[in-house]
Structure formats: C-alpha cells, structure tokens
C-alpha cells in the first residue's frame, strides 16, 4: 500500500513538473501574443526614402555555386515600361498593367503598408490592408509534403513562441528572388523571428533563409517596425483594373534643396 502511495506521489510530482513547464510555455506564449498583437508599420531606419533604398544596405547573400547559378533576373509580371526612358518631375506615365485580384509569395515580406498580427491559441493571423492573409499555425502541426503546398501561394507556415518571440518557419514558397541577392525554391526554409522591443512600441522581424543548396551560410536581414497608435486603424487598399489611373505613376516633384 505504501509503495503504491509513493509511486502515485512520484507520478504526481512528475505531472506537476510537466504542468509547470506547460503552463510556463503557455504563459510565455500569452505574454508574447499580448505584446505582438496589433498593427505595425515598417520604418525606413536608413532614411533612404525609396522602396529599394531600405534593402540596399542589407548584407548580400553568400551563395553556393549552385545557388549562384540559379539566380535569374526577376521582374514583377505586372510591371510594364512601354517607353523605357526617364520621366520629368510630375510627368505621369504607365508603370503596371493595373492587374487587381492576384495574390502571391511577395506577401511574406512586409512593404510600406501596415501589417496586423492577431495571435490566437491555434493560429497567428497576419493581414494587411487588402485581400489575403497569412495563416501561421501554432497548434504543433507539421508542414505537409511540398507537393501538397500550392506553388503560387504564401507557402506553409508553422510557428512557436521562444522567450516571448514568435518564430515562424515557412516552406513551399515558389521559386524566385529573395531580398539582398538571395534565391528561394519550395525546399528553402524561411525563418522569421518577431521580437517586440522592451518599449513595447517597436518590433524587429529578422528574416533568415536557409538552404544548403543555395546558401553558403544562412542569409539574414531585419526590418524595423513601429506600433500603430492605439487609436489607429487599418486602411483599405483599393484597386480597380478598370480605372486607367490604376496603371499610372507620377515621378515625384523635384525636391527643394
């Protein structure tokens, strides 16, 4: 009888330790989720003032010979450049086909629009100001075989919480270019670490691409974000392929010295 009680007590102790560990992990996740929740806007910390300028200072990817051989010039299929000549300040010109309604792998990397992060128990939803969303599974599921991941999408993402950071692992992205001279195939792993600074108002996302066939070492870079104010809200990104102005851009006016 005494042996049974001792055995049961030991089992209880082990369960208690397990429970403590689980509860601590849940608390960790809850704390991380609480600070990460909400809207974030990417910062141009280098003061580049242009889309390409921000990433121009990132360390270039160290590629394997096989990886370097894969690199091909990339162009947004929606881009058009009918006359390929410089345009005067303020002169409108056509830059895209004005195609609305498409979604693609470009969505894993933030642009200048706000992104919104909604952590829940099973899933972290990451949205922007238009259609489409990233569904990040935090329920412990594994990635499916690559053959089951649609090639035109945002890949398949799972995540876990590490010391309050959200760490996302993605595979299944379509083949194409990666910021700062990188390349990806469906087999390439993208790890994103979402870390909210101690001030609670700034966040850093570190992207790390790993693929022994492509990279001689993991290819990393970070984006900085500022929290959307408490009274802020999501805009709505409007797109109308039937509007001729949708295709047009305007060269910015000359800046004062």
């Amino acid at each position: 009888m005494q042996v049974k009680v001792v055995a049961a007590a030991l089992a209880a102790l082990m369960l208690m330790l397990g429970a403590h560990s689980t509860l601590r992990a849940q608390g960790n996740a809850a704390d991380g989720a609480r600070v990460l929740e909400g809207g974030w806007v990417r910062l141009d910390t280098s003061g580049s003032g242009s889309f390409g300028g921000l990433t121009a200072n990132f360390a270039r990817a160290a590629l394997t010979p096989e990886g370097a051989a894969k690199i091909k010039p990339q162009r947004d299929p929606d881009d058009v450049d009918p006359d390929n000549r410089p345009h005067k300040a303020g002169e409108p010109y056509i830059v895209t086909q004005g195609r609305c309604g498409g979604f693609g792998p470009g969505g894993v990397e933030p642009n200048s629009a706000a992104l919104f992060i909604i952590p829940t128990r099973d899933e972290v939803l990451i949205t922007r100001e238009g259609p489409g969303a990233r569904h990040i599974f935090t329920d412990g599921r594994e990635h499916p075989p690559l053959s089951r991941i649609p090639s035109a999408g945002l890949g398949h993402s799972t995540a876990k919480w590490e010391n309050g950071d959200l760490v996302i692992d993605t595979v299944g992205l379509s083949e194409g270019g990666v910021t700062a001279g990188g390349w990806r195939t469906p087999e390439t792993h993208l790890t994103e670490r979402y870390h909210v600074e101690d001030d609670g108002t700034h966040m850093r996302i570190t992207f790390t691409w790993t693929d022994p066939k492509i990279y001689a070492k993991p290819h990393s870079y970070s984006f900085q974000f500022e929290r959307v104010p408490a009274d802020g809200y999501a805009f709505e990104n409007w797109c109308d392929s039937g509007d001729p102005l949708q295709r047009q851009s305007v060269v910015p006016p000359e800046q004062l010295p």
Partner: protein
Amino acid sequence: MKAGFLVVTFIAALSGIVSAQAPNARDISGYWELTYMDSQHVPRPQLVPRVTRAVLDAQAQKDFKAVRWCNILGMPAIMASPRPLDIRQSEKMIVIAAEINAATRYIYLNRTTHISKDIFDPTTNGDSIAKWEGDTLVVDTIGFDPNKGVTAIPGGGFRTANTHLVERYRLVNNGSLLSVRFTWTDPGVFRTPHTYEFRYARLPRDYEARLPLNCDPFDETRTAFLTARP
C-alpha cells in the same frame, strides 16, 4: 487508501489545468463556413419609394462593373463568401479574412466610438466597432463607400454612405455553429430595418485556408462569360 485517493484527485486536477480548453462562448476564433442552404432564408426588405426599379438596375450595373474588374467586394459580400472565413479574435480586435477577393475586415473591440467622419475615408467594409452583451458580440458598422465593391444586400437593397449595419454574433449548438443576425438601416433605402440571419458551421481544427479565389480582369474568356446574354 485515503492518501491514494487524494493523490489521484490531485493528478486529475492537474490534468485539468494542463488540458483546460473548455469552449468559451466569448471567443469566436476559428474557420467558419456559411451553411449555404440554411442561410437562404432572407426576407425581402421594404424599400422606400425612391428606390425604384431604375435605381436598383443602376446599382446592379455598378456592382457588375466591380465584379468585372476584380474590385475588392467588401460588405456584405464577404460574409456570403462561398469559401470559409478565418475569424480570429484577440484582446483589441476581431479580424475576418476571406478566401475571396475581399479586403480583410477589422472589427475593433478597443474603441467605443466610430472614427470621425472628418477623418475616416469610406471603405467597402466600413468602420466596425464591437462589444459583448452577455454571450452576444454586437458589431456596429458605418462608413461604407457607396461606389466601391459590391453594394447589394441579401434580400434586396444596397448600401450607401448613410447605411448603418448592426451584426449580432452568437455561438450556438455548443459552439459548432456561429449565428450572425444582420440588421441594415438606411432611411434612403429601407422603410424598416432589414434583418436576416446567416449561420456558419465550424470547420475542423486541422482545416487549412486555401489560396483566395483568383480574379483576372484581363481574362478574355471570363469577360466573355460575364458579358454574354444567356
């Protein structure tokens, strides 16, 4: 014996802590699919006299243009999506992401008033705020753009800049169904509030969202299909 019983009770209590995932009537997070047949029971609204056949036809033409050119659809089309909705609720907001060409809906739990009309640019989804009344989530929306997206409201009528929508979300059938009761008011469109209920079935937890249905405005075959007379 008594000690053994206490230990077993202790273990059971701990197990309860670890696996405590009881359904929460105030959490509507999950994947939800419109119960299409059950949600067809939409009454015809009573329209004001100024909403003539010609007005309805003109509005239908605008809606057709939005579909033709793959504009984002907006409310209320997003809530009638033929694909599941991913609804996620956090402390400050509820987000509804669709697998169709509709902008994500943001419903704010941390605001009790709408964004000032002086600031808010009308959108296809409008400005939504919400609060819990018991186990019912009451969502209040204004700020619709009358010229963008698909404006048609189930049963009849359409949204305008003056439209006011109240939605009441409630989990039923032990959380397996989500009931949403829509009430539209607009003195320029409806003589009386127009109310109907949609029901959504909860999908299994292992459901994975698919890519949104693609819409190609330059697909000539599609355009021919849309513009052909049956």
